[in-house]
């Protein structure tokens, strides 16, 4: 039947909640920006150095997004069609690079690709000249290290949204791997890839420490560094704010492109169902998948192994403030998770009808933390001492940073749910809290658990806006790691990083498991 029913409901309470979330998220970015402009007394134009920083930023972000998804496709496919011991562990560990404090991850990478790293030792052993990690390729390599796992996980969900029956049908029709790709996998990828690329692009756009540390010199200047310079050197708030607006405009543009090219998608499903893939049961494909998984495991796990190895040495006699900070970080992560998932649900509700709403969720990672932090400071300062608000502000900033990921997972899942059960719930008058409690929360358990896990781990690793909002009583674990490094205590910092890594993965595992426990068909 051509007619697609739409509900006659009047604007419901949940719609209102959705718009409140939109207002909150955009207000959280826009008001601080306006405050910075207002304080600056207007905009001032970026100079030629800023424009070249912008060019480099876009270039490295595009490359990072491209390579992240180009590599994520074969990895996700191999994970989607192979069953092997340790598969679940590998998927959990895939989340690890994403949550490491940047400098810890970079040091892990250097243990592998650095001057005296494993790769160069191997090169020297076979008599080859050393490879140099510093430069644009190093920046891209590090961004791929941080973002490939995320891209893989999202794509893996896409693969598992293809019903097992389709593969059965494909097998009965005698499809080869190429046919399966054209008719089953490519349509899914076409729907998911733009969104994944958009998220990675947005993350890399505000990259600061990775680009600078591995960039090799001022050629690798990013917009975020230009903002730092405008703020610290020249105290030119107008220029800093204009640069932040440019960042946001770029991400919005990317989001619009991605949403335009991505079709309706649904990948909020579980991770553990592996449909049998008759067409892939050949030795060449098996070998391809084994090699792919082995390589990516090496690429991701060696640096992680280095982080863990170094951390074990520093774990002994870790000072008490580190454990205190760990407790603060856990509480912070839980608060941020509730905020992020709540906001994501409210936005996902609206995104069923207005897909552009998803772009709102991206604002949080698009905007310069320095500028937004400054703006919030300007807004709070007349009211009370901003450091009193450090916890709340940091939790909110973390929630904003986790929002796009939670939204990416929840929006399609909610869309499917409403398609399947919306009419029945409407006809029974299930609205507001009743609908949330008896329909949405139980039916969305898995995507909710997954997105809550993502949000929690992200919040654990995020630094938030420490420069202006440091709270000495309640330092978070990432801040303590930086402080330890700043006080020469690199070993203790490595130990604390290992604590952070374990706690984050633990939280992720708990949420993700919780979402999968006794889930019904």
């Amino acid at each position: 039947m051509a007619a697609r029913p739409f509900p006659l409901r009047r604007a419901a309470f949940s719609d209102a909640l959705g718009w409140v979330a939109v207002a909150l998220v955009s207000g959280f970015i826009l008001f601080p920006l306006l405050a910075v402009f207002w304080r600056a007394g207007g905009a001032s134009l970026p100079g030629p150095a800023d424009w070249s920083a912008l060019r480099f930023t876009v270039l490295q972000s595009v490359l990072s997004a491209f390579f992240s998804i180009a590599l994520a496709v074969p990895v996700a496919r191999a994970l989607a069609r192979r069953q092997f011991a340790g598969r679940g562990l590998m998927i959990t560990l895939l989340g690890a690079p994403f949550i490491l404090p940047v400098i810890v991850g970079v040091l892990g990478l250097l243990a592998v690709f650095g001057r005296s790293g494993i790769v160069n030792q191997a090169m020297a052993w076979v008599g080859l000249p050393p490879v140099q990690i510093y430069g644009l390729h190093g920046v891209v390599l590090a961004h791929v290290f941080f973002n490939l796992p995320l891209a893989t996980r999202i794509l893996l969900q896409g693969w598992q949204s293809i019903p097992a029956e389709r593969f059965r049908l494909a097998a009965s029709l005698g499809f080869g791997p190429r046919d399966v790709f054209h008719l089953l996998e490519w349509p899914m990828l076409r729907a998911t890839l733009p969104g994944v690329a958009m998220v990675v692009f947005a993350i890399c756009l505000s990259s600061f420490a990775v680009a600078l540390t591995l960039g090799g010199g001022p050629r690798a200047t990013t917009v975020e560094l230009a903002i730092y310079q405008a703020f610290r050197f020249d105290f030119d708030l107008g220029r800093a704010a204009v640069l932040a607006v440019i960042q946001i405009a770029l991400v919005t543009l990317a989001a619009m492109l991605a949403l335009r090219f991505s079709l309706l998608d649904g990948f909020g499903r579980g991770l553990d169902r592996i449909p049998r893939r008759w067409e892939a049961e050949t030795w060449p494909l098996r070998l391809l998948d084994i090699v792919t998984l082995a390589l990516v495991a090496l690429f991701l796990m060696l640096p992680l192994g280095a982080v863990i190895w170094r951390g074990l040495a520093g774990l002994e006699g870790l000072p008490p403030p580190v454990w205190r900070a760990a407790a603060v970080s856990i509480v912070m992560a839980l608060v941020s998770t509730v905020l992020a998932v709540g906001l994501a649900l409210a936005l996902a509700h609206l995104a069923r009808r207005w897909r552009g709403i998803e772009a709102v969720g991206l604002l949080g990672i698009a905007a310069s933390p320095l500028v937004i932090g400054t703006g919030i400071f300007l807004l709070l300062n007349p009211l009370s001492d901003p450091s009193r608000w450090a916890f709340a502000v940091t939790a909110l900033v973390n929630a904003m940073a986790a929002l796009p990921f939670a939204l990416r997972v929840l929006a399609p899942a909610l869309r499917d749910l409403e398609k399947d059960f919306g009419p029945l719930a409407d006809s029974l008058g299930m609205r507001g809290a009743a609908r949330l409690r008896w329909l949405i929360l139980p039916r969305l358990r898995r995507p909710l658990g997954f997105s809550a896990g993502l949000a929690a781990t992200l919040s654990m690793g995020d630094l938030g806006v420490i420069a202006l909002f440091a709270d000495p009583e309640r330092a978070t674990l990432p801040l303590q790691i930086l402080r330890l490094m700043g006080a020469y205590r690199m070993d203790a910092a490595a130990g604390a990083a290992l604590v952070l890594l374990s706690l984050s993965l633990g939280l992720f595992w708990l949420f993700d498991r919780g979402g999968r426990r006794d889930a019904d068909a």
Partner: protein
Amino acid sequence: MKPHLMIAALLAAGPALAQTPELTVYTYDSFVSDWGPGPAVKEAFEAECGCTLNLVGAGDGAALLGRLRLEGARSEADIVLGLDTGLISAALETGLFMAHTIDADLDLPLEWNDPLFLPYDWGYFAFVGNRGAAQPADFRELAASDLSIVIQDPRSSTPGLGLLMWVKSAYGDEAAAIWEGLADNIVTVTPGWSEAYGLFLEGEADLVLSYTTSPAYHMIAEEDDSKVALPFREGHYMQIEVAGKLAATDQPELADQFLRFMISDAFQAIIPTTNWMYPAVMPEAGLPKAFSTLIQPEKAILAPIDQADALRDLALDEWLRALSR
């Protein structure tokens, strides 16, 4: 939001109601950290002042000044502690500081008579490397060598800026040529000191830009004397960290008391092994033994404060041009 505001207001009013005077000191984050001087300083000062010392950390020195500029005269700070010589002229421009009344006998390698800002510690920038490795004796030798170095970006880091000023002050018009010579030695430029030092310890470079006092940390805390600072013939650029009293303070006497305390033994003895810098006034007990093994630069360099900004902009352009090639 309203209830929170009320609670915040009550909290703010709390100490005032209790009639305990409160002194608010803005400083950089690593000062207040558990491994910095902050905890010991707070305990020592509160023991003698009968007040509450409120140490507020805000990023690094530049972020600290940024926060002060954002707050302006409405700032709750009575004292700002942790600006360095590179930030003083910008701090002066704000017009937020007032002259202190402390007459101090400072142990600095240079004459110091700024009426507004009082030093509490100082140090020399230096390249730090491993004992037994090649040791170039100046920038030209370093540039000619194939030693690898890791430095910090002057746009986001205090030591990075210090190196920029060091080369510019020592070489003037030839600074650009020095940077061009150094370009192939530079492994990478990090956003801050921690990243650079971490990279060096990981073996990513032979030398890292740090302080002459850095080896003391390894000797005292790790009983490791394998790190050395390289003495350079041009002399070494200085970093002097200062504190200043804000004109809008509501605790002028307490603020002066803190500044006096700051250059007293109780404070100064904490500095060497927490901030890993030289104290501005030598404590009676002297320095820890490891400090005596550190190199003593023959010449201390510091750009005149009133020229520092102009010099900095010029030097940054040269630096960017030389290294972007």
